[in-house]
């Protein structure tokens, strides 16, 4: 009996929604926007991918084809690496349009990534950035509100609530039927969109999008929409009129989706400020010249590193090293190690400050599902700040290997006059190639505990609220 009633209620809800002309218009508009956002995202992704691949090939060729020169001079000339576009960028571009995509790798400097696409955009393009994620995060909740705000109030206003109440149906079955009906109407819009997304992705050559991440994004959005379905039903059950329910739900959407994202960032920045890139670079430059804060002066530290390196190679001290060329090469490497120490110190502190600010933002964002979802979505798509930093760290590791290789070339082949030595294309061809491996899903999720947890808690709370409200709908 219960199963029959549940199915009938869900069918009735779905029929009522789909036979309402407004649903057809709103659903069609949402689907159109999703497809447009998808088309735009795929085109952008493909263009960026091709552009960066070509740029990387060009930079590699430029390095390999350079004239004979001293390897350390070549290290100063450096090379460039380009951040590959993530497989799911077309779904959620995250911070990608606003952060740099290329970095110069050179000796003595850890450069910041440059070349943000947003810098080259017009102001109109920046404001009207349409993405699949934006449609899913902002517009689909509006669709859910539009479909669900009168789920209970219309029963009362129409007079069918008394017929329902007199029927002997269990409140839980009635509630379940309304949830299923609303979810089915929503699925009617989103499932075709999802199929179009998957199909277009396969045709567009991004079929290698990692399945675990894609499935995780789908699950996260399902939970997100579930929050709004439950809230719409709960508010409708508690409201005296459909108008009241609609105003309450729209007010919540405005606060959560428009006001809170900005407020969270501003409060987090106030509570836990983070220096800018140029400030960090100044601190690095100061420490390179004067030594680390609270540490030995530069010359003393480089000398200590040199002594340690000589000991590693079996020499008692610099004065016992008979070959000046070898000493010159060791000192070059010691300088490089000191620079790495300084960079690691300041960048580690910078990372800690950023992580602290992100934690503050995450806890504040737990108050609003759209804020949590925005962070979670870009993390799962691999387009958040953490993934950007992962690439930057990988580029830095490659820079050190690259510079080290060139310095070792001097140590092994330069002879007495280190600076007179010239290497050629054979040497450049041996430079390590940069291959970036994006981090796995587990790594992405490890920093999203607060966001994922808050979304789940909201789903539980909203469901309990909807259930409790539905049971208490007053007939008279």
């Amino acid at each position, binding site marked *: 009996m219960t199963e029959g009633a549940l199915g009938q209620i869900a069918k009735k809800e779905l029929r009522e929604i789909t036979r309402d002309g407004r649903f057809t218009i709103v659903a069609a508009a949402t689907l159109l926007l999703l497809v447009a956002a998808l088309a735009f995202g795929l085109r952008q992704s493909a263009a960026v991918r091709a552009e960066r691949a070509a740029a990387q090939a060009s930079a590699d060729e430029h390095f390999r084809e350079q004239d004979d020169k001293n390897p350390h001079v070549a290290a100063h000339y450096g090379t460039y690496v380009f951040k590959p576009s993530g497989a799911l960028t077309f779904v959620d571009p995250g911070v990608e349009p606003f952060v740099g995509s290329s970095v110069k790798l050179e000796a003595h400097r850890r450069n910041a990534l440059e070349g943000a696409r947003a810098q080259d955009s017009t102001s109109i393009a920046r404001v009207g950035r349409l993405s699949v994620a934006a449609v899913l995060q902002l517009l689909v909740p509006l669709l859910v509100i539009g479909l669900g705000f009168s789920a209970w109030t219309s029963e009362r206003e129409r007079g069918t609530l008394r017929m329902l109440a*007199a029927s*002997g149906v269990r409140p839980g079955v009635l509630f379940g039927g309304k949830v299923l009906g609303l979810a089915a109407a929503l699925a009617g819009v989103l499932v075709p969109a999802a199929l179009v997304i998957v199909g277009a992705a396969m045709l567009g050559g991004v079929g290698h999008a990692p399945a675990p991440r894609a499935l995780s994004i789908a699950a996260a959005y399902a939970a997100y929409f579930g929050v709004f379905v439950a809230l719409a039903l709960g508010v409708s059950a508690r409201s005296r009129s459909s108008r009241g329910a609609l105003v309450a739900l729209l007010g919540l959407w405005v606060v959560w989706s428009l006001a809170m994202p900005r407020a969270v960032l501003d409060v987090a920045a106030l509570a836990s400020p983070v220096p800018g890139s140029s400030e960090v670079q100044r601190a690095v430059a100061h420490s390179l010249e004067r030594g680390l804060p609270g540490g030995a002066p530069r010359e003393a530290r480089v000398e200590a590193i040199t002594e340690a390196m000589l000991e590693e190679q079996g020499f008692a001290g610099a004065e016992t090293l008979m070959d000046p060329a070898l000493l010159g090469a060791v000192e070059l490497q010691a300088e490089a190690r000191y620079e790495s120490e300084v960079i690691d110190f300041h960048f580690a502190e910078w990372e800690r400050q950023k992580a602290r600010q992100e934690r503050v933002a995450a806890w504040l964002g737990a108050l609003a599902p759209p804020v949590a979802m925005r962070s979670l979505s870009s993390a799962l798509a691999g387009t958040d700040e953490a993934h950007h930093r992962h690439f930057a760290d990988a580029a830095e590791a490659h820079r050190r290997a690259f510079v080290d290789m060139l310095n070792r070339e001097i140590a092994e082949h330069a002879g007495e006059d280190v600076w007179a030595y010239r290497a050629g294309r054979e040497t450049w061809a041996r430079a390590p190639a940069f291959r970036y491996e994006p981090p796995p899903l587990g790594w992405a999720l490890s920093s999203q505990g607060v966001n994922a947890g808050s979304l789940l808690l909201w789903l539980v709370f909203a469901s309990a609220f909807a259930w409790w409200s539905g049971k208490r709908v007053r007939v008279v």
Partner: protein
Amino acid sequence: MLQAVGLKKHYGEVVALKGLDLKVEAGEVFCLLGANGAGKTTTIQLFLGFVEPTAGKALIAEREVRLHPLETKRELAYIPENVMLYPNLTGLENLRFFVALAGKAELSDAELSATLERAGLARAAVDRRVGTYSKGMRQKVGIALAMAKKARVLLLDEPTSGLDPKASNEFSELLEEVKKDGVAVLMATHDIFRSKEVGDRVGIMKHGELVATMSTADLSHADLERVYLEHMHD
């Protein structure tokens, strides 16, 4: 089949029902006559479980409504003054929906259509959206629901209000059909004429109290009207 034992309902200081004792047997139509605010609708709502009694008991098929809300509702059918249905669904879809809620999802469309026709709904109207129905047509769907559910109790609240004479007569005939199926009917109304037409017994309510109960077999229309007006002017 349907019984009130010392049933009382207070809304704060306001006494809606003073203490009702009433019994309606299977196959009997009992009409509650009274002016607006007499307590008729409150009585119906207490049997429906829409409100809880302040004291006393409302029983359906010997089960107390307050303690067995779902089981008692499955025994009854309810036709309010305005039978409100889902306007975007057809008559058949509405009936199928409410019948499924009552635990009779196994009834086929053919059976439900036949029930609608038995309740007097034109064949052509069965597959039309209820938004196009008149009040009388919606009421027929309500009667069809009672028949399809095989309800043992039928609660009617001003069922002929707003109906034209033809529709009211059709309704009276349908009530006779329902009665023959052994259904106990409690009808709240201020239509003296209809009470005499369809009722086996009539109870006059005034200020929350059942002030008189009589069998309609021994009364003419004029008698009933006289008795009613005497009580109203007391």
